[in-house]
């Protein structure tokens, strides 16, 4: 199972910082997502140092917000990347495998 099966999200950018929301489709899945989608696993999936990732939680919306500093190769205005905003990152994160339930 992938994160994409249980959640949706959107990427935003400010300078060299990316933020990616992860939002449960169903409230009953949110606790499982909280356990599975940790800062460490997000950092590993996106190839970023774990110290760069901060997670904020909005339980009443079934939502998490991941803020990733230094994720955009110097920022939108300096990066040579085609998707300099990192707009695609939310879909990349949703491709993350979820561990099986115990």
């Amino acid at each position, binding site marked *: 199972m992938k994160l994409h099966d249980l959640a949706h999200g*959107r990427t935003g950018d400010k300078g060299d*910082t990316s933020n990616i929301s992860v939002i449960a489709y169903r409230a009953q899945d949110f606790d499982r997502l909280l356990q599975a989608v940790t800062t460490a696993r997000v950092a590993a999936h996106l190839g970023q140092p774990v110290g760069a990732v901060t997670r*904020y939680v909005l339980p009443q919306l079934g939502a998490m917000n991941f803020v990733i500093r230094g994720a955009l190769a110097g*920022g939108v205005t300096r990066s*040579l990347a085609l998707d300099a905003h990192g707009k695609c990152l939310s879909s990349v994160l949703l491709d993350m495998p979820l561990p099986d339930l115990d």
Partner: protein
Amino acid sequence: MTFRIGCGAGFQGDRIDPAQDLAERGGLDVLVFECLAERTIALAQQAKLADPATGYDPLLEARLRACLPGCAQNGTKIITNMGAANPLAAAKLAQTIVAELGLSLRVAAVTGDDVSDRIAGYALDETGGLAEALGTRLVSANAYIGVKGIIAALDQGADIVICGRASDPALFLAPMVHHFGWSLDDFTRLGRGTLVGHLLECSAQVTGGYFADPGVKDVPDLANIGFPLAEVSEDGNAVITKLDGTGGLVSPATCTEQLLYEIHDPAAYLQPDVIADFSGVTLTQVGPDRVAVKGADGRAPTGRLKVSVAYRDGWLGEGQISYAGANARARADLAAQILDQRLTQPQISQRLSQVIGTDSDVRLRYATRCADKATAERVAQEVEALYLCGPAAGGGVTKTVKEIIAIASTLMPAGFVPTRANLLESADEAA
């Protein structure tokens, strides 16, 4: 009675038809056009340097011509940051268009965001150095101003308020404060109004745009997507919706994606007039394409304004070429290797070589950052020269050479950024 505020643009290149629909059928009090991304104002400043009568949004005229008749008929005021680097010139153009359309509307420009004359001694977060170290590379420096200048313009009777750089949510918050008479130290209401502005400021991103994922998150009639409006109550809570008959979707899911868009700590969204707190917000579907937004809060602002500093940061030299069919990937890789060998100039400080596509249909993209334009042009030319001097059967070359405008940021005490509302004389008075 609720206060009805709509969003007619969420970025410079946004669609115009849905804005015209809101102007004509929305029954709005205010229609806001948010058109300034981080770099947009720097590009406008460069245009203004070339021609002092320009420097505002190139689509200002098209948007006003499409929306002014509907707005005038419905008594809808317009607030926008399409003034970019030259709000006064934009306001004059708006006044000319108003007159040509035979309308009687007052236009004001809000100025004061340009702080390029006092930025020198500020340290920039991204470079670590002082702004003055940029020397002639500095293009522009603009503070994200808050609601006061816009409110002053509305107090003067303006129907069309044209700003340069302002905080995006402030474009929406200001008319709410003006309409309801909220105190500027009622931080709960300012926080709620900020949330409404934040949800609306990217236009269709809250009505099902930037959301569809076929088979998983479907959006009805995305081709005819409607732009959003909010019905705001006196307490600052609101319903987000869109016009009947338009495509798209307003749901807690679309609103949650937009609520967190470009937000860091949801409990501390730093704005010029308030630190907004979205941590206790609830979103409830209260009808088809109607979501009730409640529970935002706020506290006193930091007293410092974010300033975006734009500077010239070298040149992008880029080329692309396609290879397809048998052994396509190997030919693209060989082309990249050849470019590495031919392009050894020390003026190239950074390069990115990527092969995009499946193995039988690929496109090599070779992008470089160069110290000067000539080197960037040479990079593009070497990609094109792969036609005759590279691997077999390359095609479809495209070349890009452009100056890189980088953005850095700093903070400036709000007291150093006085703003001013400049109401233009009406055509009647001038006559």
